[in-house]
């Protein structure tokens, strides 16, 4: 459950102030699949950083699972990220020369869980994204783009997060591979009930979500249901 109230973010460079977010409010319930859309410079990245607890707002409140995370220190934010948030990045960010399994387990390393448990969770997460055990011991640079992003999604999934945040997850992939990755997100949402927030500037990609929040100049301009491809697909 995400409850964002009247969030503003102001960047200061010397004497110049730049207001990236001007009073953004919305609520996302558990199990929702939401796309945040907007052109570049609209403030969607800033919003993602705040939702992902990488940054804190200048004003306003952000309740994640009932806890106000808008005023936490850096290390407290790290704790929240470790326990409640899974990230998927445009540029994948897998560790090079490291196996699929170890890449997937990486977040658990910082939780101090023991090796056996880590493996179990990693296998579960990899299975959920459709990665088979023949790939577990491949190095990350031996995989295709789609496989890499699915490993990255497994990594985001491995700590049972309240929220999966995907920042332009298909930006570096071709349409076909991108569709496979988006399909993976839909499957996670429908079958496992994961809450997913997808940040994108492409309407085609956003259409995969249930709900789309449009943002422009730091403000929400539209928040509504997607007349989605997925429904079309459902009916097909």
């Amino acid at each position, binding site marked *: 459950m995400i409850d964002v109230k009247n969030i503003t973010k102001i960047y200061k460079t010397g004497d110049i102030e730049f207001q990236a977010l001007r009073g953004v409010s919305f609520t996302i319930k558990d199990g929702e699949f939401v796309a945040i859309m907007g052109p570049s410079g609209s403030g969607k990245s800033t919003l993602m950083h705040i939702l*992902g607890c990488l940054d804190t707002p200048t004003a306003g409140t952000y309740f994640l699972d009932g806890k106000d995370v808008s005023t936490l220190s850096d*290390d407290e934010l*790290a704790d929240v*990220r470790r326990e409640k948030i899974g990230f998927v990045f445009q540029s994948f*960010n897998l*560790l090079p020369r*490291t196996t699929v399994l170890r890449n997937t387990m990486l977040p658990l390393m*910082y939780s*101090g869980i023991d090796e056996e448990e880590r493996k179990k969770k990693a296998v579960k997460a990899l299975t959920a994204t459709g990665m088979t055990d023949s790939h577990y011991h491949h190095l990350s640079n031996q995989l295709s783009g789609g496989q890499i992003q699915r490993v990255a999604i497994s*990594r985001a999934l491995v700590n049972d997060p309240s929220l999966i945040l995907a920042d332009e997850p298909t930006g570096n992939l071709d349409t076909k591979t991108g569709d496979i990755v988006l399909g993976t997100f839909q499957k996670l949402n429908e079958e496992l009930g994961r809450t997913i927030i997808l940040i994108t500037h492409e309407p085609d990609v956003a259409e995969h979500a249930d709900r789309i929040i449009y943002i422009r100049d730091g403000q929400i301009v539209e928040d509504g249901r997607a007349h989605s491809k997925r429904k079309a697909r459902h009916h097909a």
Partner: protein
Amino acid sequence: MKTSDIIHETYTALLSNKVRTGLTMLGIIIGIGSVIAMVAIGQGAQGTIQSNIQSLGANLIQVTPGSQGGPGSQVSQGRGTARTLTYDDAQAVAGELSLIQAVSAELSSRYQVVGKGTNTNTTVMGATPAYPSVRNVSIAEGSFISNQNLRSLSKVAVLGPTARDDLFGKGASAIGQTIRINGIQFKVIGVTVAKGGSGFQNQDDMIFIPLTSAQKFLAGANYVSTIAAQAVSSDAMSQAQTDITYLLLDRHKISDPASADFSILNQNDIVATASSVTQTFTILLAAVAGISLVVGGIGIMNMMLTTVTERTREIGLRKAIGAKRADINRQFLVEAIVITLVGGLIGVALGAAVSWGLTAFGIIQTKVSIGSIFLAFGVSAAIGIVFGYYPARRAGALNPIEALRYE
């Protein structure tokens, strides 16, 4: 983060760029290796010098005459020229002082010596029967000067091996032969065992004759040039030195110790002086080696800074998935420390091997001390911490958003 994770992460990171890790480590290997080898050379030299000094005789206190002239005189002929010490003084030191176990009275001077058609200039030492035990000299063949020789002013001589070689040819038998010292015939009755040069004088190139004969036939005067007294133990030496000083002052009727007509040299002082020389030498060598260690440390800092920059995105990712500042900090610090410790270990082995080689090939005596090994390890770990701290702190302080965007 568990210890096993830190080890695994460090291992992976260091092996991911083997050449760079290896070269950086080489700096520490050379630094630590040279510290170990240099200190080993210094300490080996110290050991060699000390044993050389000890080979001159144990617990020796040496009394030599002061300058001719005495109080009130304007002209000094230089220390050692006075003829104030006598055989009686030596016997008094031997007889009256309980801390002295043996005394050798000596009168040495250089003379032209003629053997069997050969001719050499060497030291002729007027000695007493106590000489071999006090001066740590052994007899190879024949016998040394006896009390009987001393009393009867015998014209007998004992040759050092070098003097024997010079006069009669290498390894030739000299016993029973005749030599002429300053034109006077002496009969050879013994040869001493070779001791090798000791740095201060060559005890092998010497000819020993009875002290009384030397006084009467060669010097023509009743004095001695050295009284070597052997103290009962090393601890008793400074007290024995004081005792000798007061005994001789009393015998020479001098009330003020400052105007004594003799000077006393304690073997412990010589050892201490030599030790301080070699210690300075060791410190100098270690300091030079230490500089290379510091350079190696800077190499580590350089590598770690490069690594942190290269891995900025990785650091950003780790932070995004929940790594705290301290986790990142620790990871990079451990990398630096592992490089220095492994480098230190190899360096110690290398330094020890070089020292061993120097000794084995007879180039110089060395001694690798446990202390220097522990010191080297401590220093290398400290270098890892000091030079790894700044890069690690930089890594830990990176902002995850900016780090993830870093190209």
